[in-house]
């Protein structure tokens, strides 16, 4: 099965341990978010997974190949969007993409058709023969995205893909990431943008030199804040208290709001309240953003 598997990965630079005890699996077609503060080891993890640097210890399997022995193959099926785009400023956009594509072994005819397809898709066709030095940040980022996928890789590593981009370009990039998922690509997304992670990622890992937690955004919310249901009511608080105490629930009341903690089903509770003459106005689940989870975890 096509996947990324990391087992007990550790990375040290001299005496400085940058990553320790890193374990995760990423399935085919999954968008995996990698969140963490600056210096948490996000870029180092990407560099290791793309075979740019070696881990100090641990095992990594990508596409059932051991990274230790098959770096060249793994690099050929991986695409990388680096944190800063990095292009030859005096070369035009096509020359830049052609150079990198040749290193991936793409033949000339195939390359021309891919260049035409992606440049049109990202709205860079008219600027294709302009030196990259004249491009805006957003244009360079789009070009870097093209470079990361031009060889049709199965695994795509995106390091801060929307950092310092305007909202419109960020939106284009996010749509493109979702589009890649639709094509069955496995995406490793390192980001500071928690809304973005919440929007596009199937699962996220929160990292600070070691993995603090991994799960879907919903799972993480449940683990950190518990599952809270809020019932807004109109009626006597003391009456509500006695009804809920009789149901043996973990709850608290603040004004006209009842907070039910880790309650699986709420209809029977609502029914009990209504039958006792309490008016139930709203029932809803308390929502937390990924940002709140993140702040709580890295505290």
């Amino acid at each position, binding site marked *: 099965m096509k996947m990324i598997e990391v087992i007990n990965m550790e990375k040290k*630079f001299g005496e400085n341990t940058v990553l320790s005890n890193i374990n995760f699996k990423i399935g085919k077609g999954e968008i995996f978010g990698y969140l963490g503060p600056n210096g948490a080891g996000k870029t180092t993890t990407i*560099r290791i997974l*793309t*075979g*740019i*640097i*070696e881990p100090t210890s641990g095992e990594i399997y990508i596409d059932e190949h051991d990274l230790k022995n098959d770096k*060249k*193959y793994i*690099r*050929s099926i*991986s695409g*990388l969007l*680096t944190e*800063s*785009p*990095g*292009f*030859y*400023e*005096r*070369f035009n956009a096509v*020359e830049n993409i052609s*150079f*990198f594509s*040749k*290193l*991936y*072994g793409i033949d000339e005819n195939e390359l021309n058709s891919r260049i035409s397809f992606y440049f049109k898709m990202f709205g860079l066709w008219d600027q294709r023969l302009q030196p990259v030095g004249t491009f805006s940040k957003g244009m360079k980022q789009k070009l*870097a995205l093209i*470079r990361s996928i031009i060889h049709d890789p199965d695994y795509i590593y995106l390091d801060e893909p929307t950092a310092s981009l305007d909202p419109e370009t960020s939106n284009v990039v996010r749509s493109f990431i979702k589009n890649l998922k639709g094509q069955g690509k496995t995406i490793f997304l390192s980001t500071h943008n928690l809304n973005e992670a919440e929007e596009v990622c199937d699962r996220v890992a929160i990292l600070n030199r070691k993995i603090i937690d991994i799960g879907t955004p919903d799972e993480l919310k449940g683990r950190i804040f518990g599952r809270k249901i809020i019932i807004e009511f109109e009626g006597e608080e003391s009456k509500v208290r006695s009804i809920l105490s009789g149901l043996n629930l973990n709850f608290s009341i603040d004004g006209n709001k009842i907070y039910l903690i880790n309650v699986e089903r709420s209809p029977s509770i609502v029914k009990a309240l209504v039958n006792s003459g309490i008016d139930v106005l709203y029932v809803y689940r308390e929502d937390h953003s990924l940002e709140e989870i993140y702040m709580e975890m890295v505290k």
Partner: protein
Amino acid sequence: MDIKNVLIMYRKDLREIMTLRTVKYSIIIFPVIFLAILLFILYFSYINLGSVNGVPNILNSTLNSIPYSSKGKIFYYLSMNYLIFLSIVPLSLASTISSYSIVGEKQQKTIEPILATPIDDREFFLGKLLAPLVPTLGITYAVIAIYSVFSDFITYNYGYIIYPNIPWFIVVILFIPFSTVLMILFTLLFSSRAIDPRSSQQFSAIILIPVLVIFFLSMLIYSLESILLIFLTAIVIVFDFILFKITIEIFNRENIVTRWK
């Protein structure tokens, strides 16, 4: 090792260097001016040549070992020495080209995307070595060809031609290529630590000192010419080997990504 990747890297570097106006002009203008000056000196020497009797005593045995007429001896002596002096051309060109090759990658932050492709460290390194070597040798050999034909054209008047001869072959086939490689390795080594091309060029210019020493040495002990040149070339090859080992260590991807700033 995939030679195709080496050539892709080499062609890209060469093309990139040629887009730099300052480098493009300096690698054309410097050899042209240098050659023009040497040809002028050579011609000026020819029309003002005196006899062997007029030269300092220290050169008597040297000049006596040259099997030509009196004026021919002096011209031969001057021409051969200037030929060694021409080694400054490849060293200077190699330093200029290779310093831009590494610092340019660093300034444009293109190293990481390259290392993410299937290219391996040796292919990357050899591409970087080849990019300055080929144009440098091409231009140098053109300069030497013009210089040699000009010298032969003058000595033809004395009834003989100087080039090619054994010392010429040693200089052209051994001394110049190996000392150019040495200069490139030196520059690559300095470039990995430099943040701008000029500082790496200035550091690598240190290597010009031994060339000047060789030039002045060869003027004094001319009769040892071939042996001296072989000896010097052997020293250069030893340094090439040592520096190659050091540089290949520095061209380790972990070093490149984490230490090249």
